């Protein structure tokens, strides 16, 4: 159970850091952002894939930190990037575990 606690902790810390960072970057009132942020999408994909598929506690923890960072951005930001990251991570997870299922 220690690993799950670490994942949750790193995800929460990543979310808080993402929230602080995005408020520092975007101080304006709420806007539903339509453009796709490629660097954040790469961070999100890397985070979710590492988190779900690495099989290593430290790498997964780093992954959830990165995933939390993008997902935790202020409302209106990071939604599409998170969705893309999650979908790719789920596909990679299914491909890696196909033989088990």
């Amino acid at each position: 159970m220690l690993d799950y606690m670490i994942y949750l902790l790193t995800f929460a810390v990543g979310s808080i850091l993402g929230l602080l960072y995005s408020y520092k970057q975007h101080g304006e009132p709420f806007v539903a952002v339509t453009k796709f942020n490629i660097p954040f999408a790469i961070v999100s994909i890397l985070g979710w894939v590492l988190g779900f598929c690495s099989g290593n506690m430290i790498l997964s923890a780093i992954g959830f930190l990165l995933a939390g960072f993008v997902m935790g951005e202020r409302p209106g930001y990071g939604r599409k990037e998170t969705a893309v990251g999650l979908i790719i991570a789920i596909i990679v997870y299914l491909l890696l575990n196909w033989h088990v299922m």
Partner: protein
Amino acid sequence: MNLMADILINVIIAFLAGSLLLGLHRKVMARVQKRPGPPIVQQLIHSLKFFFKETAFPKTVSKVFYIGIVFILALIWVVGVIVGPVAHDSLLILFGVYAVYKIVEHNSGSSSGSPYGKLSCVRAVLSAATELPLFAAIVFVYLVTGTMNIGEIIAYQSVHGPLVFSIPLAALMFFMLIITKSPYSPFAITKDKVLISGFETEHFGFLRGFMLFSEAIAWYVLLWVFLTIFFGPLNAVGYLIGMIVISVITGFINATTPLLSPNHSVMTQITIGAICFAGTVLMIFTGVVA
């Protein structure tokens, strides 16, 4: 692993997961109502923030009780974590935990001396109606599996399949309890906005922090118990998906349903409970449930 370490880790997991799930619940409600909503991590940040806020004590409070009750509230849900995820012990103890929680809700309101708290305390007695379907659900689980022990119920399901397929109406009764316990529920008569924050109205600072801590753990424990006793042996991913799905469903229900008045709330709960009870009895006696 050392038992104390196991308990500590599970309590931290319950707090973090419960807070994030409640954050997700708020987010879903907001999106259904076409609001951007707070970030998912906001509930967790709120809970932590209250521990560092100034704590004020109203003149009307019964001080020992007023302070003690929040620690009891936190303690009973920590007991819930110990009985459930840690020890896989008896469902009856969890029923006891929920019954004590209702008493704590009641006493928390009455100890504040505030009219809002007192009215919420009276409503806490009425809302004990949710315990009847809970108890009935537990009885049916016992009738089918022949045990109250969570570990043995898991073992039973690994052989016979998830209980939700054999006693779906009992699962529905338990799900109604989850809806009742969820924030902004149509049955949340103790926290009606007419009563400001109900029994929590007069608790500030770290006392409120303890209450939010307990709420997060309570949400996690209820979801864990529901998934464990009705959806068979699950791995961590199964629990994660199940908890997220239930939080989203309850968020959707709560966003689209107005709060019922106390009498309607109690009657609705009892009616749904009675229908599910009769239905499950019928299923057992007609041999639909093996």
